[in-house]
């Protein structure tokens, strides 16, 4: 059975995976102790002719010990979670200077808004690509995500990244991809009958590839959008 | 056994608390009611904090004087309820009946005034979904001029209408239920089912009635006055 997390390609991966494995080991020990204990007790103390159960109501020392051990363990897990959580989703976690994109989720597509040639988001030369997020490798990226209709959840398994996108709210989702390549984006929150088809792609490029791609798409959008963009306002 | 049809078991063993089941049960049930109104009021608070601009200045859309009188009536009905209870404790059957009838009538009046208020508001243009298109309020809000000695009405009142009707509506529903149960208790009082020794039904419905009054005082404060 594989309890092994698949390979991940963002800066969050090592820390989240490490925490996962730490918890796996801790819970694994508890699991083995309890299950072996149950099997052992079931065998050892099974009813046999002549056996009489001991009349015991409890043992305060034992109870205090296992209560304390459990409490300390879970508090340690909690404390270890804090810095990682703050890094990924904390209030001011988005690094300064992160490349920004607009992401608009609607049934059942992810529309990505790119800054046009001026490099600024939310200006006239922005262009939109459906279901395609292209980012450079080793750069901080922030997605300004909104939803048009219902709640969606932006999920990139390879980045260990998930964030619900709620209509009426603006979510800032950031990450830093570490390996070029194509990865899948899924919607992780039930959003209607086509939920399972709400699939998109994030392509991590090297910086040169990315610049080239962006320039191409911007030019294409420029030429294509001119008449129809105006018409549809 | 007077209240058996409503609350009582066929027979009660000695209650462990020394308080009869009906009363304990009503207190417990009211715990549930508290949580219900907490959900409504909590949602109101969250929505209002999120969009304070959708709330009209107190007294602009809602008629405070009328509702204040209505509130006063409801508080009076709590008093008449207490009077009814006191009467039967003294074995005063006549007093019990009189005060119960008074309570039922006042409760019914309260609900009627609330229905009138709804009709009036809907006519004026406030619906659960917000302004009614083309209504007086909608036009006034669109024009942006001052309305009724206050500032201009909010441009949108979707949440205001939503919370107003839901909260007062559910309170009204509770009062209506209370009036119906109270009418039943009154009917039994006229049949002489309550005695000095056993008048549990009067006490139990009284508990509910006071609770509903208390909730109204909170609702009146936050919905009408704030």
């Amino acid at each position, binding site marked *: *059975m594989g309890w092994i997390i*698949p390979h991940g390609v963002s800066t969050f991966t090592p820390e989240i995976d490490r*925490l*996962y494995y730490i918890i*796996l080991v*801790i819970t694994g020990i508890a*699991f083995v102790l309890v299950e072996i204990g*149950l099997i052992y*007790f079931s065998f050892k103390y099974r*009813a046999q002719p002549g056996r*009489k159960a001991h*009349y*015991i*109501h*409890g043992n305060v020392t034992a*109870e205090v010990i*296992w*209560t304390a051990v*459990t409490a300390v363990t879970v508090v340690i*897990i*909690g404390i270890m*979670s*804090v810095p990682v*959580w703050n890094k990924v*989703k*904390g209030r001011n976690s988005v690094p300064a200077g992160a490349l920004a994109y607009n992401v608009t989720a609607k*049934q059942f597509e992810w529309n990505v808004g790119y800054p046009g040639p001026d490099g600024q988001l939310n200006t006239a030369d922005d262009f939109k690509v459906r279901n395609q997020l292209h980012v450079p490798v080793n750069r901080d990226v922030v997605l300004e995500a909104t939803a048009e209709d219902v*709640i969606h959840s932006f999920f990139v*398994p390879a980045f260990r990244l*998930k*964030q*619900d996108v*709620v*209509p009426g*709210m603006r979510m800032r989702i950031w990450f830093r991809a570490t390996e070029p390549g194509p990865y899948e984006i899924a919607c*992780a929150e*039930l959003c*209607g*009958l086509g*939920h399972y088809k709400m699939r998109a792609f994030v392509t991590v490029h090297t910086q040169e590839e990315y610049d080239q791609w962006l320039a191409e798409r911007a030019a294409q959008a420029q030429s294509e959008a001119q008449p129809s963009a105006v018409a549809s306002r | 056994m007077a209240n058996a049809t409503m*609350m*009582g*078991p066929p*027979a*009660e*063993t*000695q209650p462990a608390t020394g308080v*009869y*089941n009906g009363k304990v*049960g009503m207190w*417990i049930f009211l715990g*549930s009611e508290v949580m219900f109104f*907490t*959900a409504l009021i909590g*949602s109101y608070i969250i929505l209002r904090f999120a969009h304070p601009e959708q709330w009209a200045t107190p007294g602009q859309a809602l008629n405070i004087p009328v509702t204040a009188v209505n509130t006063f009536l409801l508080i009076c009905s709590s008093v008449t309820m207490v009077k009814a209870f006191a009467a039967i404790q003294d074995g005063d059957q006549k007093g019990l009946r009189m005060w119960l009838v008074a309570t039922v009538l006042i409760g019914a009046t309260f609900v009627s005034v609330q229905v009138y208020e709804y009709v009036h508001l809907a006519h004026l243009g406030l619906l*659960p*979904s917000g302004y009614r298109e083309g209504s007086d309020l909608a036009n006034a809000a669109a024009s942006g001029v001052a309305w009724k000695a206050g500032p201009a009405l909010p441009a*949108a009142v979707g949440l205001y209408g*939503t919370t107003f009707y*839901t909260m007062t509506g559910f309170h009204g529903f509770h009062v209506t239920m209370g009036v119906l149960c109270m009418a039943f208790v009154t009917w039994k009082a006229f049949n002489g089912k309550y005695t000095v020794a056993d008048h549990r039904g009067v006490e139990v419905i009284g508990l509910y009635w006071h609770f509903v009054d208390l909730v109204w005082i909170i609702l009146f404060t936050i919905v009408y006055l704030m």
Partner: protein
Amino acid sequence: MATTAAVVDHATHAHADDRSFIRKYIFSTDHKIIGIQFGLMSLVFLALGGTLAMMIRWQLGFPGKPMPLGSLLPETMAAGGIMLPEFYVALVTMHGTIMVFFAIMPLLMGLFGNFLIPLKIGAPDMAFPRINMASFWIAVSAGVLMMAGFFVEGGHAGAGWTGYAPLSARPDLSGVSLGQELWCLSLIILGLASILGATNYITTVINMRAPGMTWFRLPLSIWALFIASILVLLAIPILSGAAIMLLFDQTIGTNFFNPATGGQPLLWQHLFWYFGHPEVYILILPAMGFVSDVLACGSRKPVFGYHSMIYAIISIGFLGWIVWGHHMFQSGMNPTLGMTFTISTLLIAVPSAIKVFNWMGTMWRGSIHFTTPVLHAVGFVAMFTIGGLSGVFMSSTPVDIYIHDTYFIVAHLHYVLFGGSLFGLFAAITFWYPKMFGRMMNEFWGKVHFWLTMVFYNAVFWPMHDIGVHGHMRRIYDPSQYDFLKPLAPVNTFISISAFLLFATQGIFALNFIISWFKGEKAGRNPWKDTGLEWSTPSPAPHGNFEKTPTVYNAPYEFSVPGMAEDYLPQDQKADQSRAPAGAGH
């Protein structure tokens, strides 16, 4: 006190039962009949919820292939036997809704809350028998409404059992209008039934305990039902309030959850989970209580740490109110709150661990008779442990980022609700069956059912952790759409086949249940040699329960008291003063 009670007793108890058939079995006010009615209703719903799960598993195991018997379904559900996505979403929604609200909860609270509370505290009936009866029939009408949703235009509710707004509030976006409205209405009505039931249980426990039945002589099953009833009483009205708001949003145009007019979609989640987490404990606490009773009896030993078990139940009940945010870590809630909820959530591990260790302590140095109920109880401990431990993963917010809304969660919740609640229920049903029907269930087939269930159950849900760790999302109709999920297809097929076998295995239980009703071996008053008050009455217990109000002298689990001839000392049996057990009167 005992004398006053005895005077009343003569009037109420053990009189000739001359009620008509309808008063006796249909509109009965007898808590035992109402309990059994709840039980039968929820077992039907359990089978139905299971059937829905099988359809879900068919689609996941064999995506796009025509379902066996699928051609019997109308075109709006399955076209040529191939399930439609909107039907799949409705299945997912209704499987969850039915199992939580119409199967597990009424089995635990409706069946056993009703059946056990008066019997185990020595009361002749509930505090409010008529309200009790009303509660059942209100629940039935809620069930009928819920079922009606399958037959309306647009299909049944399709926003998940959690009904997240705005999807649930917008017929144009979900394609479902009447179905979702019926869903809300049914939950509101069921809520009323639950609240009436809880009021009844709490009053009964507070007020109607037999003389000598002090709080610390109550069996753990009653403590668990009592705390769970308080949770029902306080949590269900929150759901009712939320469902009413949702219903109004759908029907009269209110704006609670409509973001376009300033409504707050997250408000629904806060309300739902503020109800929902206590609900989770409503679904597990009673099972914990039953298992404690069964394990003590099976091990012939007092429950280890009886007092700390009670405090654990109480603290789980309390902590349940301050952890709802852990369902919403990825919802866009204020991230700072995340830490608070992490800590409070992790703290729940403490009382849960206490309970697990105490169950093991109960078995330790006992003399365990592995009857069917005891097997299920031990199975409960083993499986609940897994469910509890997998919960630690998602309470850690960073790990939750990855596994939230994946099959890891599905595995976790089924380990708690199936491995926990349902194994606990199997233990309880097989244990108290003789008291309900006067006959024993078949032990051989009971054991076969247990072992097959245990094997197939783990074959279904254990691999779900694995696919969850690989990122497999919940509630998706066709995983083969995603490249990263394609390698998991064989696992999904394996899970599905195991699920069909697991479902088929439950047929053994159903047959055992039905056949034993008529043909089972006659049970005496106390077939398990247990200490509870219910075993001092005939099986099945008569109307009014006890020939004479019992007086309680002992703590609930006085097994194997040294120096006594029998290895159990019933709660209402005075121990010889000279050999008074040390634990009595705790």
